């Protein structure tokens, strides 16, 4: 791992809606992502965990340029992507690629696998036919699929195979960073392990950097070097994976870890606890987790807590006024 970050997100913000209607009425706005600052170093895997609606997919789409932030900057390898992707997505796509959650929906049902995989080779790398043919073989080999599959259609594949094709497509342009948005959530556990192992191998083989987004804590723990926990559009805790899972500081991270089902463990959580997210159109003035938090005080409802480092470990930061102390 080198010191210069490959990707640095500075105070990124994405607001949906907003503006004014024809008659000057303000339209309601939702902050999907707010004040997110993350650095990803070359060669590491950053896990992003959060529940549905926390803004993790919006963050992912902004990194790959499918969506533009309404505030802040996303800098990749020293270049400001926000400014670039607007008029030329291709330059960004050569460096940063994306793996979708639903493997089958992300493949055009009327195209053969060959056509799908050739697209990035042709449009991003401008390869000629023999070079494409050679690269296709390498790609199929990398994701452990037989080359005969190239002439089949997506519906002929199982979920796991389709996801491997999705990964091959992301690899095709030889990117430096791959954003994986819930890459194994739609798969059976047996297949999930296959895909995770392949991802692991590819990372070493091609020197890739991953941003791995998932709601599944155990999956994130098994793949990530560092982990960011998101809640209601903000990062509430970020740090080395091991530290976060061993001694979480934010009460929300605690709740997540205690809720995760694990073989051989009964649930630890009360069945009538409040699980409601705050109203996104009318966000609370202070900490978004206030209403659900067992440690809340009046202070939490007045101001948004900043991300602050732990006593002995400046890299383990939590956005909480009353964090659990590191053990």
């Amino acid at each position, binding site marked *: 791992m080198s010191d210069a970050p490959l990707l640095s997100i500075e105070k990124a913000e994405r607001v949906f809606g907003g503006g004014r209607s024809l008659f000057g009425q303000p339209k309601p706005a939702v902050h999907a992502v707010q004040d997110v600052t993350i650095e990803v170093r070359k060669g590491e895997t950053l896990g992003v965990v959060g*529940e549905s609606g926390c803004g993790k997919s919006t963050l992912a789409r902004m990194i*790959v*340029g*499918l969506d533009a932030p309404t505030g802040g900057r996303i800098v990749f390898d020293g270049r400001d992507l926000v400014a670039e992707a607007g008029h030329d*997505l*291709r330059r960004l*796509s050569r460096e940063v*690629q*994306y793996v*979708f*959650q*639903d493997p089958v*929906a*992300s*493949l*055009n*049902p*009327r195209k053969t696998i060959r056509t799908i995989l050739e*697209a*990035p080779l042709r*449009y991003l790398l401008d390869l000629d036919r023999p070079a494409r043919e050679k690269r296709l073989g390498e790609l199929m080999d990398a994701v452990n699929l037989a080359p005969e599959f190239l002439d089949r259609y997506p519906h002929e594949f199982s*979920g796991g195979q389709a996801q491997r094709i*999705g990964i091959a*497509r992301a690899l095709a*342009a030889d990117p430096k960073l791959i954003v994986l948005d819930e890459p194994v959530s739609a798969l*059976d*556990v*047996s*297949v*999930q*392990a*296959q895909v*995770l*192992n392949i991802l692991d191998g590819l990372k070493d083989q091609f020197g890739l950097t991953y941003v791995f987004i998932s*709601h*599944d*804590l*155990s999956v994130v*723990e*098994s793949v990530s070097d560092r982990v960011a926990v998101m809640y209601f559009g903000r990062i509430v805790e970020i740090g080395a*994976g091991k530290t976060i*899972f061993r001694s979480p500081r934010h009460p929300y991270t605690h*709740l*997540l870890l*205690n*809720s*995760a*089902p*694990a*073989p*051989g*463990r*009964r*649930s630890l*959580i*009360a*069945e*009538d606890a409040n*699980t*409601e997210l705050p109203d996104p159109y009318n966000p609370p003035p202070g900490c978004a987790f206030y209403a659900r938090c067992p440690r809340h005080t009046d202070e939490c409802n007045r101001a948004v807590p900043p991300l602050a480092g732990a006593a002995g470990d400046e890299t383990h930061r939590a956005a909480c006024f009353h964090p659990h102390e590191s053990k």
Partner: protein
Amino acid sequence: MAEATATTAAQKPAKKPKGRPDSLSLLLNNTLATAGLVVFALIVLAALAAPLLPLPDPDATAPADRLLRPLAEGHLLGTDALGRDILSRLLWGTQVSLLVGISATLIAAFFGSLIGLVAGYAGGRVDTLLMRGIDMVMAFPYILLALAIVAVLGPGLLNALYAIAVVNIPFFARNIRGIALGLSRREFVDAARLSGKSNAQILFIEVLPNVLPVIIITMSTTIGWMILETAGLSFLGLGAQPPQADLGSMLGDGRKILFTAPHVSIIPGVMIFALVMSINLLGDGVRDVLDPRLKSGALTRPVARTAVMREDVPDVTPRPDTVLDVRGLKTEFRFGGEIYKAVGGVDLAVGQGECLGVVGESGSGKSVTAMSIMGLVPTPPGRIAGGAALLDGEDLFAASDERIRKLRGSAVSHVFQDPLSTLHPLFTVGDQLVEAIQAHQPLSKSEATAKAADLLKVVRIPNPAERLKAYPHELSGGMRQRVCIAMALADDAKIIIADEPTTALDVTVQAQVLSLLDTLRKEKNAGILFITHDFGVVSAICDRVAVMYAGKFVETGTTEEILNSPAHPYTAKLIDCVPVLGEPERRLDAIEGRPPVVNNLPVGCAFAARCPRAQDDCRAAPIPLTEMGKGRTVRCIHPLTGDDADV
């Protein structure tokens, strides 16, 4: 032609193991569409053959022979007011009408689809501008608009063609725009964008092929309408100009002498009728074949209860201490000539207040097992082929439809995976709960409402009286699932069949719903049949577990036994796949290969092909379920013992 299709139909199953009939034989299955096709083909052939047939010149007048009746010598269908041969004019006219109708359809389809594609893909301001333009065209009555266009351009067949094409552009544009709008938000479009394709490339290379069937469907259903419109304009004298024959102008010519010489107008009228009718019938058939929604079986409406056609009925003497007792359950699906044995002999028993988990990969038959019990598997194509399901000793497969209807939702109730699609979006949750209560209990509306509020309290929904007035979309996912659970408890269920009830929920919500189900089954003393793919969830709630593979249970036992010392290699492998929180270093072991397809199961063990311990005897004969201790069974002849379970 019939012969040719018969042979292709016969060859198909051999070529395609799925046995799904191809498009042409599907179309020919539809009698009306086939009739339409035959009539249309005959008319087209006749019209095309007009120059070759020994017909008199259609425009040659012969005042001496005017208004001859049909079957007159030399004039099979008689002559018109100017003595022109009607048969000849009819065939030439049909040719003109067909040509104009088809060209107008093509023009309208091209421009309409283009506008629709661009509007749907671009969205935003472009969409608004284009669609408001289309709305303006639609605001005029079509005939008025066509008249206006013809008035500007002057009468003539070609101008009529333009007018009809323009009038029909909105029809295509609106249809295609809707489809394109949906497709443009799909993930494969994002993927294409990241592959470096430009907007035009995405629109025409990615989106268009997916829209094409809809364009063809729309064309096949509009072409008849276009021919009618052409005829209408020609009838008014704005289309084909004399002496050119066209079905509409022939009709117009005959109008004045309708009573003296009815055949002059009736013959082209019948031709228009036959042509348009045949095209419409054929168009409907084409739509049925191509439309994916209809193809997926929406036209074959399943009956209210799964057909029971049991080849073998097991002994149904009740066992004590069980509420639900399923014995030798076999459920099959029949597609074409293939039989898919989704459930191939399952025995399970759930006692009072007990929770039995059924774990398996997708396609293992766990949901079909659960749905079979109350006859919820759609028929056709599903059917129960054997076994029995005893509820307190009563054989559910032998019960009357009326009895099953009574039991559904009362003694046996279901909780499904997606609460948003289970609840009706247009009724409040209160209405739906009251309906569920009143279906089984003779309560007045106010009593039922009070009971509904109690039920919401039981599932720990705060402020129940207020929440009854909420619509499903106003509740969070967890709250919705609680409403579904409340509904399942509406009439003192003995068994709750929960099919992946927490899979669609977030982890924190999942944990709560699981604890709630766990508490409720103890409070209400109800048994739960819990279907899931997640061993973590199983540990949270289930007393006993059955592991399912390729339609059969491969291992059953208590949750602790199964998790700590799995005996079947499949169970062991499946547990090894699951990443465990707090053990990030653990290497995940994937199961190589894929589960077998259930229409072609091997003779021996279905897992043998993927099993590291498989030997020749595993593949030789069916493996029975053997007892390994109290309540512990395994379907394996080389099971893992405690010593090598860790290996």
